[in-house]
């Protein structure tokens, strides 16, 4: 704390930048945070950090044609000795610079022991004369600045060294990261062997950084786009945090005074600097977006001040970033999430503060629904560190399980698939049967659709029979429907209430939308609202017929008029509003139940009347556009089952109206669904009954035949033509000795054979087996 106050007195400033003459490769700052050195291929300068900008203090790049020794891959300012700097040159030299030298050339020592580019230099944090380097040639060297040569050489034995870092707390330890993904820990006194090694990343580890306070923590960043924090204090090195970034990580630097924060920048594509809270790895805590090209060097201006970050970039600029000017992605991110599970469960995550209120309401809800209520909110708490002023890092996740066997599941799908009859009976009976099935499963809309189809497409030969029959039927049908509807809407009310408790006011809009979207698929809950809709449809169809019949009949085609009408119907009061409204009390839903059950009543009367009046005159073709519409509607609603079933049952009556691709698409989706539910028989029946070429041939694909190798008699495990074990081609033609990839015919007597055509040709000339086994082959 004492340090802090001292620091805040000396360091001040604002976000500022200056242009450099050339791209920077690395930067380093002197101990008192007043100067920064920038190094690159064509630049090597020292800038002073003033209140309102950078001031160039010194150009270290001297000479008319500077040698490659000036081309720096890395630079470090000594933290004990303020006049001492070291650079890693791209040509493999390690150079030290003494600012106190009286002449222009400040170069002090030149070590040319590395064979390849030196990637990193590092001064010992407390030992003045100790310098460490890591090179592309795979070696690390330790230099004593009082001597002309390195004092020890460490061989990593695993490709190029990308970074070396002295431990801040352990005098003798340093870490090295390698191109092959390894990280090694070394004792400076033991150059013969590393103390520890572990694989940290897949691909190169570009950087590593010791935690300034936690003795055992090492952060590493790699080409695999990850930042990992390792705990070395235990016997086994343990990964304790992992941050997934969007690009390869070039540098990583712990933030001073903030235990869980580190800054990263990338080597490619991404130009931003991110500051992460490692405990919250999915979103950066802060972002600096000033650079126009990749950031190559980042350094915290003072080792005890968390608010100033310096950075150099390939875009030839040097920046001082102020933490207060950073952008905070958290502020822009959506803090709530909602998702439906496979079995109708609902998961919902939000900030804790938002969730604490609904929790109590949820408790109330539990009491109200004693039966089958297995909801349980799960909460993950993370106590925010009081010393940090950041946004809360914790969210709460609640999971609401659907009731067992509730309507949200897909049972209806399986039941329907198994019970529907798609062929084998007269058309009218099929429709009738399917209507019953749908009704039994509480799917009134589908049930009515089947009934309507039967009416529309039944043979005109016995109209009286069918219409009579229908009259009786329809006399029952709507009533039953309206009855089941009441039940259903009551159930839905319950669900609505449940939802209400789940999400409460502040999130309602969000949830409502989702709720709706989700439920349209695969639950009758929605369907029954639409029931009124569909029902009305039919009404209007009939009434419209009534009006236009004379005009339309000669053309046998119902043109566009049908469609606008349909859309108008969507606005009918009994349409889906109730769901959108999100009833606040049981009243609303009560009235909604009434309104829905009204519609079938109307339709009842209309149907019966229209049947009597017109059915004998209407050719089935007349209905095709509407049926087509209806099929598309079902398919779009996600009920592709209905679409395909109707398609099959209607067969030629409708097939030509719908384009082949759409049909194929429906079939594919339905078959896929069936197979996911393991309804193989149904799926096969559908495939057989389909009229699309592409579908029918499905039965011929993936009819894999597992065979044994003809040579070693063991199963052929891999694909292809060669046996894994004995490495012989498995099915070789006895005539041409090539692999048989199509029809293979063989003699059952000697089990030799080959290509069909070859064997046939052979047998014209000879009766003996082409393999020469002497068998008199017989083929039927």
């Amino acid at each position, binding site marked *: 704390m004492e340090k802090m106050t001292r620091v805040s007195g000396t360091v001040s400033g604002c976000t500022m930048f200056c242009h450099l003459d050339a791209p920077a490769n690395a930067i380093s700052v002197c101990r008192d945070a007043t100067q920064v050195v920038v190094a690159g291929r064509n630049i090597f300068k020292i800038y002073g950090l003033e209140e309102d900008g950078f001031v160039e203090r010194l150009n270290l790049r001297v000479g008319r044609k500077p040698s490659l020794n000036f081309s720096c891959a890395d630079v470090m300012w000594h933290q004990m000795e303020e006049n001492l700097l070291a650079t890693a040159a791209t040509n493999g030299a390690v150079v030290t610079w003494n600012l106190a030298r009286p002449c222009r050339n400040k170069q002090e020592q030149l070590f040319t022991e590395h064979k390849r580019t030196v990637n990193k230099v590092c001064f010992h944090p407390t030992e003045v004369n100790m310098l460490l380097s890591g090179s592309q040639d795979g070696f690390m060297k330790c230099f004593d600045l009082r001597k002309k040569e390195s004092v020890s050489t460490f061989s990593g034995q695993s490709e190029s060294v990308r970074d070396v870092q002295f431990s801040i707390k352990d005098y003798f330890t340093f870490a090295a990261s390698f191109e092959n993904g390894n990280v090694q820990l070394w004792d400076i006194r033991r150059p013969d062997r590393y103390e520890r090694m572990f694989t940290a990343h897949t691909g190169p580890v570009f950087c590593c950084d010791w935690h300034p306070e936690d003795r055992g923590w090492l952060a590493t960043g790699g080409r695999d786009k990850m930042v990992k924090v390792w705990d070395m204090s235990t016997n086994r090195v343990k990964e304790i945090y992992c941050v997934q970034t969007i690009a390869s990580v070039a540098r990583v630097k712990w933030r001073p005074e903030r235990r869980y924060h580190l800054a990263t920048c990338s080597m*490619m594509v991404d130009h931003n600097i991110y500051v992460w809270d490692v405990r919250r790895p999915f979103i950066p805590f802060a972002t600096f977006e000033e650079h126009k090209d990749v950031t190559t060097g980042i350094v915290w201006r003072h080792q005890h001040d968390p608010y100033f970050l310096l950075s150099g970039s390939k875009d030839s600029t040097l920046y001082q970033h102020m933490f207060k000017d950073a952008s905070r992605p958290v502020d822009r991110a959506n803090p709530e999430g909602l998702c439906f599970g496979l079995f109708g469960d609902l998961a919902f995550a939000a900030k804790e503060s938002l969730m604490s209120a609904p929790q109590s309401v949820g408790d109330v809800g539990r009491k109200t629904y004693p039966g089958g209520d297995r909801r349980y909110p799960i909460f993950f708490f993370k106590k925010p560190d009081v010393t940090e002023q950041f946004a809360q890092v914790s969210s709460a996740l609640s999971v609401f399980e659907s009731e067992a066997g509730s309507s949200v599941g897909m049972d209806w799908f399986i039941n329907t698939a198994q019970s529907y009859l798609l062929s084998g009976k007269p058309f009218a009976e099929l429709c009738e049967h399917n209507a019953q099935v749908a009704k039994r499963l509480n799917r009134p809309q589908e049930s009515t659709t089947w009934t309507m189809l039967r009416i529309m497409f039944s043979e005109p030969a016995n109209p009286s029979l069918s219409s009579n029959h229908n009259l009786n039927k329809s006399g029952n049908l709507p009533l039953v429907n309206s009855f089941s509807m009441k039940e259903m809407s009551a159930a839905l009310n319950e669900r609505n209430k449940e939802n209400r408790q789940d999400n409460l006011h502040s999130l309602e809009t969000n949830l409502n939308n989702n709720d709706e979207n989700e439920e349209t698929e695969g639950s009758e809950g929605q369907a029954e609202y639409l029931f009124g809709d569909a029902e009305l449809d039919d009404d209007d169809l009939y009434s419209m017929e009534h009006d236009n019949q004379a005009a339309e009949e000669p053309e046998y085609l119902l043109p566009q008029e049908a469609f606008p009408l349909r859309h108008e119907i969507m606005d009918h009061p009994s349409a889906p509003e109730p769901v959108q409204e999100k009833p606040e009390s049981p009243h609303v839903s009560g009235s909604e139940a009434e309104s829905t059950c009204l519609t079938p009543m109307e339709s009842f009367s209309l149907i019966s009347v229209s049947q009597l009046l017109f059915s004998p005159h209407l050719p089935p073709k007349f209905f095709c556009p509407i049926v087509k519409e209806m099929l598309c509607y079902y398919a779009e609603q996600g009920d592709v089952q209905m679409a395909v079933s109707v398609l099959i049952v209607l067969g030629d009556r409708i097939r030509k109206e719908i384009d082949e691709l759409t049909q194929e698409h429906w079939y594919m989706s339905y078959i896929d669904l069936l197979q996911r539910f393991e309804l193989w028989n149904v799926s096969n029946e559908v495939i057989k009954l389909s009229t699309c070429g592409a579908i029918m041939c499905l039965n011929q694909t993936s009819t894999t035949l597992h065979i044994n190798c003809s040579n070693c008699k063991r199963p052929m495990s891999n694909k292809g033509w*060669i046996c894994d074990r004995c490495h012989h081609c498995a099915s070789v033609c006895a005539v041409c000795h090539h692999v048989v990839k199509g029809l293979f015919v063989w003699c059952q007597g000697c089990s030799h054979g080959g290509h069909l055509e070859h064997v046939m040709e052979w047998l014209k000339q000879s009766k003996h087996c082409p393999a020469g086994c002497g068998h008199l082959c017989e083929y039927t």
Partner: protein
Amino acid sequence: DARRTRGRRGVYRASLLCMKALANRGRLDSVSQQMASHPQYLESFLRTQHYILYMDGPLPVHYRHYIAIMAAARHHCRYLVSLHSAQFLLADGDPLWLQGLEAAPLRLQHLDHINKVLAHQPWLTARSHIQALLKTGEQCWSLAELVQAVVLLAHCHSLCSFVFGSGSDSDTTPTPRVHHGTPPGYCLCDAANGNTALSPSLAGPTEKAPRRREEDEAMFSADPSRFVTDPEFGYQEFARREEDHFQVFRVQDYSWEDHGFSLVNRLYSDIGHLLDERFRNVASLPFPHSPDLKRAIWNYIHCIYGIRYDDYDYGEVNRLLERGLKLYIKAVACYPDSSKTPLCPLSWAPVKASDKVHVNLLVMEARLQAELLYALRAITQYMIA
């Protein structure tokens, strides 16, 4: 003896790979045969090639083969042109396109320029080329497509060098594939994956088959020059142009490991790992001579293409590589064109044939990396601007 067992295992692995290739395609191309002496490398080479040509990627398969044809035609490599012409047809490509570049869609024609530049003077590749191809319009390329195309081009150009170096180009008419049992017009990779003989899609192609096969045959003798514009454009000494504004490409500023990999892997997933494996494999091939010689060869090839390493003393190239070898490398890398009179004599006779294959592999991979580096740097520059 450990070495011998390893050697035996290597031979065994190579023969297995070759057998697989043979069984799958009905023929074994001479390229694979040559590479078989380095089974580990062969495996990664085949995997990369298979991935670029047949696996997931933004470009349709027949486009890929056509791009390969364009690339191979730059070096008049009849062998690759005819190979990919046949595969182009098998992938349901329009036979008309094979009449020449002008018959191909505009989009592919637009690729001609970058193809030309990459093949002969890759240092000319600039941001503007990338920009021109990606400029929105009817014939524009997407970044992902372009990256795949560039990888394909670089792969095929460098493969031309290998084919030329190993003399495989001499068997210009590959023996027609064995058709027994495999209906013509039948995708090669399908054949390997099980029984598709009853596929309904075959109903169509079978009628077309005779015509197809004739065309196949016709194409085998196709003249690569019909896919080439500006045939005079060729390699020029980079060193001579140094006085111009072309700067030396510094590996320390843009390297495959640090930059190229990340970019290419981002835009064309997994290819980075595959190529990385190839480069690693070729670097780790057991070389009977000193590793310095290997590095000298690699750096010399890159030097020919204007790519320099800060940490390399280029005097070493002259010390380690005898003149004959240098000429050979340069001929294989820059003028892999058997239709022209060779500018350099191919007299370099190494001690063993396997050495020659090794050098050819080095040339191919170094060239591949060089082209990729230039192309990817241009793409990076485009993305920054």
